[in-house]
């Protein structure tokens, strides 16, 4: 006569929807508040990360070092890993980045071939690893004055333009003397968008 199933998720789903409907905080205001900090007074290395499309910004402290890769963590569980400044993992943000090869970009920034291939790995909601390959071209440097966590900095600007069968990605890197990346605007995934990362001047390294 009837079939039934207990579905306690209905109410939970409403909660989730309500949470999703909350007004997004003003990222620019938050960023302005963060960059007013006196980074010279910081006791540990910090980076500032702004997720452009996801609409959030925050400070992350160093959580680990593995070879050339530094892992950064925010207080609320966001994780970024950078291989000498090139983004190789994004976690705790919903859609993220599982892995990426930084070597071709780093080689190009160091004066190697300007045309190269890069590869990324993302995870599908069904826990499958998706491979994304693109052909990339690096252009630069150009002398630029940019905002680096609230301060004007004279840096060299580079643009990495990549495209492949599944889409395209554009990354920008700004380096200081010695080709060290101190600011970047990097592609996470089509869904997650870009993240702008600043290494604040004055903060310990």
């Amino acid at each position, binding site marked *: 006569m*009837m079939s039934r*199933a207990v*579905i*306690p998720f209905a109410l939970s789903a409403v909660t989730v*929807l309500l949470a999703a409907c909350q007004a997004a905080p003003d990222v620019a205001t938050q960023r302005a508040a963060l960059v007013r900090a006196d980074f010279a007074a910081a006791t540990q290395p910090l980076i500032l990360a702004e997720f452009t499309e996801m609409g959030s910004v925050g400070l992350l402290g160093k959580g680990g070092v593995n070879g050339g890769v530094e892992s950064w963590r925010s207080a609320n569980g966001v994780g970024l890993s950078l291989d000498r400044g090139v983004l190789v993992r994004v976690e705790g943000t919903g859609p993220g980045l599982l892995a990426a090869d930084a070597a071709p970009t780093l080689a190009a920034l160091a004066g190697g071939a300007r045309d190269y291939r890069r590869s990324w790995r993302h995870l599908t*909601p069904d*826990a499958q690893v998706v491979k994304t390959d693109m052909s990339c071209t690096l252009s630069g440097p150009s002398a630029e004055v940019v905002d680096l966590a609230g301060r004007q900095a004279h840096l060299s600007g580079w643009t990495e333009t990549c495209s492949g069968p*599944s889409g395209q990605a554009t990354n920008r890197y700004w380096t200081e003397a010695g080709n060290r990346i101190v600011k970047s605007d990097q592609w996470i995934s089509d869904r997650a968008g870009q993240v702008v990362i600043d290494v604040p001047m004055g903060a310990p390294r």
Partner: protein
Amino acid sequence: MRGRNVRVKATTLAVVMAGAAASATGAQAQGFEGGRNAYGMPGLIDMPSATSFDDADLSISYSRFQVESRTALSFQITPRLTGSFRYSYIGAGLTYDRSFALQYRFLDEGRYTPALAIGLNDMVGTSLYAGEYLVATKTVGPSLRFSAGIGWGRLGSYNGFTNPLGAISGAFETRPPRSAGRGGEFEVNQWFRGDAAFFGGVEWQATDRLRLVAEYSSDAYTRTAGQTFDRATPFNFGLSWQATPRWTLDARYMYGSEIGFQATFALNPKERPHFGNNYDPAPPPVRVRGQEALAVLDVPLETALARDLRAQGILLNGVQLEGTAATVDIVNATYALDAQAVGRTARVMSRLLPDTVDRFTVILSRGGMSVSQIVLNRATLETQEFALDGTAAALSSAAIGDRTQGLPAVDDRYPNGGFALLPYVRPSYFDPDNPVRADAGVAVTGSAEVMPGLRLSGRVERKIVGNLDESTRRSDSVLPRVRSEANLYDREGETAITELTAAWYLRPAPELFARVTVGYLERMFAGASTEVLWKPEGTPFALGAEVNYVRQRDFNQLFGLRDYDVVTGHVSGYLELPNDFHLQLDAGRYLAGDYGATLSLDREFANGWRVGAFATLTDVPFSDFGEGSFDKGIRLDIPMDWIGNRSSRTKNSLVLRPIVRDGGARLDVAGRLYEEVRGASDRGLTEGWGRFWQ
């Protein structure tokens, strides 16, 4: 918009599956999404088309015109096979009707050739919609699509002609009458018989979101035309608007006399909804040996491990350090996929264990019994953490195996338990008097692990609002009324103990699992349930046996019992098939004392989604079974973390039966072994390994 997004995803997926089943995906002509007809199947307005939805597309649609409404749950079972279960109200007091439909697209559209599909509508219901068809669909240019077909049965009822299949055999020219009045039987001897008729139509994708459709219908609506509505012409016209990627709205002018509309909500288990992002906090990174500064232990190792694992939602059962090897025994209390718990445990271990340890073993326990162990090389974790293919590398270097013995429990591990207060909704479907009823209330659940393997569980529900008690239908079953008096349980059990059990899990031998559960096992039965499962390592199959002695519970679902008791049990075979399919065969004795077997076929996704169908045939004659003839239905498992923003092991199971009778009814005992352990087994871990570094 929608079309573009989908194409990008399709391409990305194509990269993943490069070489694997590329031909099976059967990509459709570009530019068009598969349209949905008023039955929720690929089609025009009332007629079918030779298209398919995206693979694994799952939708619920509601269509209505005049007094006839159809609610359909449709699933793209494989890239070519579409299935639908439908609940209809066929107006003017005629009837409620439940029916199934299948369509198979056996030819992809080519440059000059159309896609071709064959379909069966309402093949096991009461056959009010029974019809078969062969349809061709061809896209012309970027925005026009034509479909034409030949239909039989209901689809051959308007402007029909002598069946051309009569050339094969004269028997095709006559459609025999239905042989059974209770529904539920395959009326194979009717299929493709009797008069045939042509149908067809055209779709114009006017914009990314708007599609205009016109069709010529071969359905004469023999039963209702002239009674509930005026079928003035065979032509239908419609607008289909893709309101959002998930919602489609249709407006139609039907048969020259009626306005119709349809709303469809579609999702795909393979794609997370935008509100379902997984915001699990990032795990701690691996500590590479040589960085002792990061491994400051302010408390004993055991305490620190328990604390840091708990922060990851993982419970520590035990820990053992032997020379250069460290073993931890854990319970994954948080992550839908055990591989994620293993990955996080390994990283916590790297941060706390001395540099001299070079091998990590993680024991996965479930229900207090150990299930499997994963041996990881510490050096591999260090080198592969950020490697491009570090996921595959970590898997290939991991040794996953059976584990029958856990570690001695850490202090304070037992007893362990807790309570939770949760809202619940208990829906009921397809009562002939009211197709959807529901109760809502609060449930107090509690569980306690007394010692390794022994768990006490209880659940008390208190109804707050609802109308399940409005069902006053009396069971007319001639079998023991093991399920058909559910409405009495609803009415009398406003405060009900829905579970009160003690369950003991144990590992009698390698590859063998066992369970004994006693108490109030489910809403309607109490007693003892025993089960063993043989799950050989590295194989896609498992074999189980279950024997239960149960007694029917009082309708008020407190402590009393009724007179009926039965020994029931099954031998169960489980088989993982390629392409996410899973087959289960249970043979044995059912609650009403009937003997028979249940066949279940599911499509399972690594993230926990499951969509499947089952059917049970027992020695109860169809006439004794009653309406529907035999037990069958479809089931959905929806993982909570798919819609939530944190990992969760909770799943919601929805079982839809066209009708619930007493034949072929199984005991509903919690914690059956196969589902308990398979995620932590070698194949389950490998399947979900993508989340190892998450």
